[in-house]
C-alpha cells in the first residue's frame, strides 16, 4: 500500500516523532515499500485460525498480593532528565 506524505505526517504525529521535512520523501518511499511487503499477508487463508499469543500457548501466571518493593526514588531519579522535590518535571500540562 502506498502512503502519501500527509499520511506519513499523521503517523509521525501519532507516534510523537519529529520528522524532518527533507526526509519525508524517504520515509514515504520506504514505508510504502514495507507495507507492500507485509500486504502479502492478505493472501493467507486464516479462516478459523486462533491468533498465537504465546508460542507455547502458555497462560498467565499469578503473583501473590504482597508488597515486595521498597522506596528507591533517589536511585531511580539519578537518571531522570529533570526532577524537583521527588517529582518528575515536564513542561506544564493543560487539562
Amino acid at each position, binding site marked *: 500500500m502506498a*502512503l502519501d506524505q500527509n*499520511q*506519513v505526517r499523521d*503517523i*509521525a*504525529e*501519532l*507516534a*510523537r*516523532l*519529529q*520528522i*524532518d521535512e527533507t*526526509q519525508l520523501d*524517504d*520515509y514515504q518511499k*520506504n*514505508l510504502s*515499500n*514495507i*507495507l507492500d*511487503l*507485509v*500486504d*502479502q*499477508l*492478505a493472501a*493467507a487463508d*486464516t479462516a478459523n*485460525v*486462533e*491468533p*498465537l*499469543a*504465546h*508460542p*507455547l500457548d*502458555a497462560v*498467565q*501466571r499469578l*503473583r501473590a498480593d504482597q508488597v515486595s518493593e521498597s522506596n*528507591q526514588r533517589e*536511585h*531511580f531519579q*539519578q*537518571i*531522570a*532528565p*529533570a526532577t524537583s522535590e521527588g517529582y*518528575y518535571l*515536564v*513542561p*506544564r*500540562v493543560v487539562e
Partner: protein
Amino acid sequence: MYNKTIADIARDLNAGEYSSVELTQSLLDRVEQLDSTYNSFITVTKEQALAQAKAADERRAAGNAELWTGIPIAHKDIFCTNGVLTSCGSKMLSNFVAPYDATVIDKFNQAGAVSLGKLNMDEFAMGSSNESSFYGAVANPWNTDCVPGGSSGGSAAAVAARLVPGATATDTGGSIRQPAAFCGLTGLKPTYGRISRWGMVAFASSLDQAGSMTRSAEDAALMLQVMAGFDAKDSTCVDQPVPDYSATLEQDLTGLTIGLPKEYFRDDLSADMQQQVRNAIAEYEKLGAKVKEISLPNTHLAIPAYYIVAPAECSANLSRMDGVRFGYRCDDPQDINDLYKRSRGEGFGNEVKRRIMVGAYALSAGFYDAYYKKAQQVRRLIKNDFVEAFKEVDIIMSPTTPSPAFKRGEKTSDPVAMYLEDIFTIALNLAGLPGMSIPCGQVNNLPVGLQLIGNYFDEARLLNAAHKFQQATDWHQQAPADIA
C-alpha cells in the same frame, strides 16, 4: 590465551595455568589494542572486570571455585547492568545508566563470571548489519569492509576477534544466528520462554529471546546452563526443568532424522552456498544421521508476518522512551508535545523511526484485523508447519543466511532488501522454536552458517548435533586471517 574457549579457560583456571586477573587483563589489553578496528564494545568496564577477576581468584584460592568462577565474557548492550551504561545502541539511551540488573546479568554474576563490558548492536536490536548503532558500525573481523551481521554484531565481532571467549546476545528475527553465520561462530537462540527477558530492553516482546555467541557448541551449552531457567518476574518465561546440557553433548547421532525444508533450498540460493550446506549435511550422514525432505508450506508468509508483529510491538514498547523519566531529552522543550516529538525524533535513528511508524500504522483504527491479528494467525500456521514436520524428523537444517557477509553500506538505502536477509531465521522466532547457527564452510573467504532448528525445549539435541559436527570438522576453529 585469547584463542581459548570457555571450556578451555575453565580447565586452565582450575589447573592454575593462569589466573582470572591475568586472563582478564590480557583480554582488556587486547580490546584496547584492537577494538578501534572492530568497534565491538560500547563500554569497557575495566575496573569492575578486574575487581570481579580478583574476587574470583580469591574464591578459587579459598577452594570455593565453581565452573564459571573467573571466566570473562561480555554482554550485548541490551541487557540492563546496574550502574553501567545500557545504551541499546541508541542516542535515546546514551545516558541511561541502568538502575538494576537483568536476570541474565544477575545469573552470570551469581555464577562468578567476569564482565568485560557492553557490546555494540543495531539500535534497539533493529537491523541485520549493525550499521544502525548510534555508536557506529561494527566491522566483521573476517573482512573489515563487511558487516558482522546484526543485531548482535558487537557480540559476534568481539567473539570472532578473540576479544572475549563468549558473549550474550539476543535474537528477535535472527539477530544471533545471522551474525554467528557471518562471523564463523556458534550462535544459539533457545526456545521462547527458556531464558528470562527481565531487564532485556524489549524490541518485540513475543519474539525476543536471549542466547549466546561462542566459538563452540560445548561453550554454548555452558552459557545456556547459566542463562536458562524460570523467572517469576517474566510472565512469558516457562517453568520447565533445565537439563544438564553438557551431559548429552557426546551422544551418538546414529538414527537422527534431519529434515531439509524444500522451501529453504531455493533456486535463487547461490550454488556456492548450496554446496557448503550440502557438504555439512553429508557430514551428518557420515555421523549416522538420516536425511528427509520436508515442507514448511507457509514459509513465504514469515517475513510479512514478522514485519507486522515486530514493528507493532516495538511501536508500543518504545513509547516509554519519552524523555520524562530517563534517557535523552531534547533541549528547551516548548510544551509537552514538543518534548515528546523532539526527544523521540532526535533520540531515535531512522530505522527505529521507520519501524515505530509501520507499527503505529498497522495498529491504527481499522487495520488491526488485517494486520496484527492476521499476522498472529499466520504465526499459528507457521508454528503448525513445524509441529507437523517434527512428527517426522528430529531436527531441521538449512542455510542460516542466503549469502555470506555483505559489504557495509550495500543495503542501508533499501530496508526491504535488508529485511530479506532474515528469510531463513525469522520463522523460528514466529514459532518460538530454538535454533542454532554453526560454521560449516566458507565462500569467498567468508564463513557460511548452517542453521539447526530444534523442537520446543530441545536445545540439548541441538547442542549435541552441533557438538558432534564440531568434533568431526574444524570449521568452528577457523579464525579470521588477521587473528590467528
